[in-house]
Each structure stands twice: as structure tokens, then as C-alpha cells.
């Protein structure tokens, strides 16, 4: 089967972002950008499906700035076959992303879309579910295991109480959780090879879908700051403080 993997260029997970002093947004000037960690897991899963003979072709797609090419190249170096970059100067919200992805799915006809459960910039956790709804496909969200079983896809999901397994008709959308796999590092030869893999470029306008933002960011502020407290010298002192000062025991 053909697998489509949407990947997002986001701030690297090690960066502690700061709010701009005018409170319009966070300051992303000169910070390190990377592939969203959950999307790396999605790429890895697709590559493993290919290595297992379940998948034949892996197409990676990113919607974002020209620079999102770097993240597509990384996915190609990990083992994806070709990429599609959809450029947009403005931030495209999840609904807009899902609509563009829907168009790409209609063109490419993959049997499976694997994507991250959550982009770690906006922490929204919704694009995969939205895409599945627009396509009328089933979804296996927060996956920690994906197995093809006959004509069904068995997905084990991380839920609040533990784990749940669902069987999905194909085509389907899967979103990844952290424990699905551990993504590989691309080797240098594969990074070189990835430079020659095909990468199609389009613009969001090419798809003729409404991607106008629905949410207006009125302001972005610092979270309430926690002051560091005190160091206690002993367990006895800790228990005394918790009882008498904090009143929580």
C-alpha cells in the first residue's frame, strides 16, 4: 500500500520559547527548528511498514515555509520515497491543513495516512482526526502499535485508562504516540541520496480550499511564573513544612 506522512516544521523540542515583549506572539527569530517529534515517529513507522513489505511507497508532505524542505529531506533520508512541499507564507491552522491534505489524499490515493498526534508548537492534537472526518475514514489516534491484519488495520491506542485496540477498515488515518517506535537517525549516505529524491512544490492556493484562519490570536503572554522555593535540609524539616507552612498534609 501507499502511505502518506504529513510532517510539520516546528520549534525544536529542546528550545524554551520566549514570549515577545509586545505580547503578539512567541519569539521564533534564530531558534532551532526541527521536524515535529511525533512526525518523526510517523515517518519511522511508515519506513518500517515498507521494510516489512506492507507498504510500497511513502510520500511525505509538509505545509509551511520554503524552509520546511529541510524536514521533508530528513524524512526522505530516513527512507521515504518522495516529498510534496506546499508553501504558504501564513500560518495555516489545523482545519486548513486538513483540507489541503484531503486534496492531496484525493490525488495520491494512499491507503494509509500516518501523522503525529500533536504538533508541539500549538499543542492542538486535532489535524489527523479532522482529516479522517473530511475523508470519511476511520482513525486510530495515539497509536502505540500498528498492525495490518487481513484487510483491517489493528491499532493499539494509548488512552487515559490504559490501552485500547481498535480494528479499522482501510483506508485509514493513524496518529502516533511516543511509544510507537524510536525513530532512526539518517545515515550520511542516506542524507546524500535523499538530496536526489523527487520533491514537488506547490502552493496552498493551488488547491483552491479555504484556509483563512478562524482563530485570531489576540495576545500571547507569559504563563504565571512560579518562584523557586527553598531547599530543606532533611526529611523531618520537609514534613514539618508541609504540615505547618503549606498545610497540605
Amino acid at each position: 500500500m501507499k502511505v502518506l506522512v504529513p510532517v510539520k516544521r516546528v520549534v525544536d523540542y529542546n528550545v524554551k520559547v520566549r514570549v515577545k515583549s509586545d505580547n503578539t506572539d512567541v519569539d521564533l527569530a534564530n531558534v532551532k527548528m526541527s521536524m515535529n517529534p511525533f512526525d518523526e515517529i510517523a515517518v519511522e513507522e511508515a519506513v518500517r511498514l515498507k521494510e516489512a513489505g506492507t507498504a510500497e511507497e511513502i510520500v511525505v508532505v509538509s505545509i509551511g515555509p520554503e524552509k520546511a524542505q529541510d524536514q521533508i529531506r530528513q524524512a526522505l533520508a530516513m527512507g521515504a520515497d518522495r516529498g510534496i512541499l506546499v508553501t504558504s507564507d501564513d500560518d495555516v491552522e489545523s482545519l486548513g491543513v486538513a483540507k489541503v491534505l484531503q486534496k492531496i489524499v484525493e490525488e495520491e490515493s494512499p491507503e494509509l495516512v500516518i501523522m503525529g498526534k500533536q504538533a508541539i508548537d500549538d499543542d492542538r492534537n486535532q489535524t489527523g482526526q479532522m482529516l479522517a472526518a473530511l475523508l470519511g475514514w476511520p482513525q486510530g489516534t495515539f497509536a502505540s502499535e500498528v498492525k495490518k491484519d487481513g484487510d483491517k488495520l489493528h491499532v493499539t491506542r494509548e488512552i487515559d485508562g490504559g490501552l485500547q485496540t481498535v480494528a479499522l477498515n482501510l483506508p485509514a488515518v493513524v496518529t502516533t504516540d511516543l511509544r510507537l517506535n524510536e525513530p532512526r537517525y539518517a545515515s550520511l549516505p542516506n542524507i546524500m541520496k535523499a538530496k536526489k529524491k523527487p520533491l514537488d512544490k506547490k502552493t496552498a492556493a493551488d488547491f483552491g480550499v479555504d484556509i483563512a484562519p478562524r482563530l485570531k490570536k489576540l495576545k500571547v503572554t507569559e504563563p504565571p511564573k512560579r518562584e523557586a522555593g527553598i531547599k530543606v535540609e532533611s526529611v523531618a524539616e520537609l514534613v514539618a513544612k508541609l504540615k505547618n507552612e503549606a498545610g497540605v498534609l
Partner: protein
Amino acid sequence: MAILVIADHDNNELNDATLKVVAAAQKMGGDIDVLVAGEGASGVAEAASKINGVRKVLHADDANYAKRLAEPMGELITGMADGYSHIVASSGTDGKNFMPRVAAKLDVMQISVITGVESEDTFVRPIYAGNAMATVQSSDATKVITVQPTAFDAVATDGSASVETVGNGAFPGISEFVAEELTKSDRPELAGAKIVISGGRALGSNEAFEQYIYPVADKLNAAIGASRAAVDAGYMPNDYQVGQTGKVVAPELYIAVGISGAIQHLAGMKDSKVIVAINKDEEAPIFQVADYGLVGDLFDLMPELEKAL
């Protein structure tokens, strides 16, 4: 204007999170109806009818809702959307699963995991692992919202709303429940516990959790949590993970044991009222948010703590 709140439950019990979601809905303004979709969940519908400030409970009963899979839930809720200005659910894994489906079907942008309500169309939500708070205004006709329950105080439960049976939505029949493996525990539930004690990579094994964390948890009647590192290493099940991509908790007391305090972990616990950190590295970032820090080896300190309680 009316608001539809989707109840969080397991067919047997109404999850307390729903009381907090109703509190958030009250700040949006309008009559509040609660949807209980499940199988054999009339006890839950009954419990929901007692939530203060609820106009009526809508009860959909069908085997297809037994596990609240996203596909049938998406159809059901979308079919009921007419007449509601807001559709609101808890940001637990159920709500996170089916609400964006509803949003896409209604062609609206979901407002995920809000922690504040400024007005009927303006909400506050954390972004970048809680390193920033965004205030966003929605221009959509229907607001589809998931709520961080820990950010709101539960409403009381001495109301008496009517319960109405509602018909079912379409059943897409494209997904089916196969099995589940639920963590069994007699301890308080992590998301709503008054005291949480979490262990990190430093524990080194599941046995160490049992030996060093459980006894203290028992004395304090605390829920147990874990860092991602501890969950990844298999010391604890996945549903114990606290953080940006796990559970968000805000107990009265949070005790972090052998946890360094990565931003992703802090995102899940920094709104706790009192934070205690036990770590042998006095430079560990967790101390920057801890009210009380104790520097030392957990393997010495935890047995001492158990005795002192």
C-alpha cells in the same frame, strides 16, 4: 444560545472532569445540556442530571457508543449540533479523539485544551508546552472546544435536570473495538487526585517504584505518576505519564522523585499548588519550580519519608 457538554464516563461512572467542564461552560453563558452517549449508561445519565446548572441531560444508548469510538460519536454529536452555539468536552483522550471530527464536519476550527474563558468567543490556552499562554478569539458559528479540567473548579451536584432519550446518529461501521487493557489500581485517579507522587528515570525499575514510591503513596493516599523516561523504560504503564503529551495534573501537593524537570514534564504539573522535588542533583531544573527541594539520594530519603509520615 445553548451549550452542549459531552459527558466523560465509562458507562458506569460519570468522570469528575465533566463537573469541571460544566464550570467552564457556565463562563461561556447560555443553557447547558449534557450528552451522555454510552451503552447501559443510565446511571451516568442519572448522575449527570444532578450537576448544578444543567438544563437537561440527553441520553443516547447504543452498543455503538459503548467505547465512545470517534466515528459514531462524531456522527452523533454533529447531528445534534443545530441550536448549540458551543460544543464542549473534556480534553481527556476520548474528547481529544472525537471532538476534532465534530469540528471538521461542522467546518470549524477546534479550540483545543482551554484553561480560561474570557467571553463567549474568546479563550485562553497554553501553547509551546505551557511556555506561553495564547488568548484566541473564534469567528466560527459553532465553537467546538476541549477543556483542561484541572483549570476549573467542579460545580456542585445537587441539581435535578430532566433526562431525555435521544435518537442515534449514523453508524459509519468503519471501525470496531477489539480489546482493552485497563490499568487497575485502588489508588486515586491521577487526573483528579489531591496528592500525586511521581517517579522518574532515577527509579531504574518497576520494583523500585513498588519499593520506594508505593509505600509513601499509600500513606498519603496519593495517586502515582511518572516521567516519560520512566514510562518509556517500562517502569510504569503509559497512562501514568505526566506532561505535555501525557496527563496534566494540578493537585494540592505534587512530589517529584528522581525527575530532572524537563519542560515537557513541567507542562503537566507546574500548576500544582505545592511542589516538592527530591533529586540528588542540586542543579536539577525541577528545583526552579519546587516550593520545597530536598537534595539527596531517593533510595535513602524515600524510606525515611515513609517513616516520618
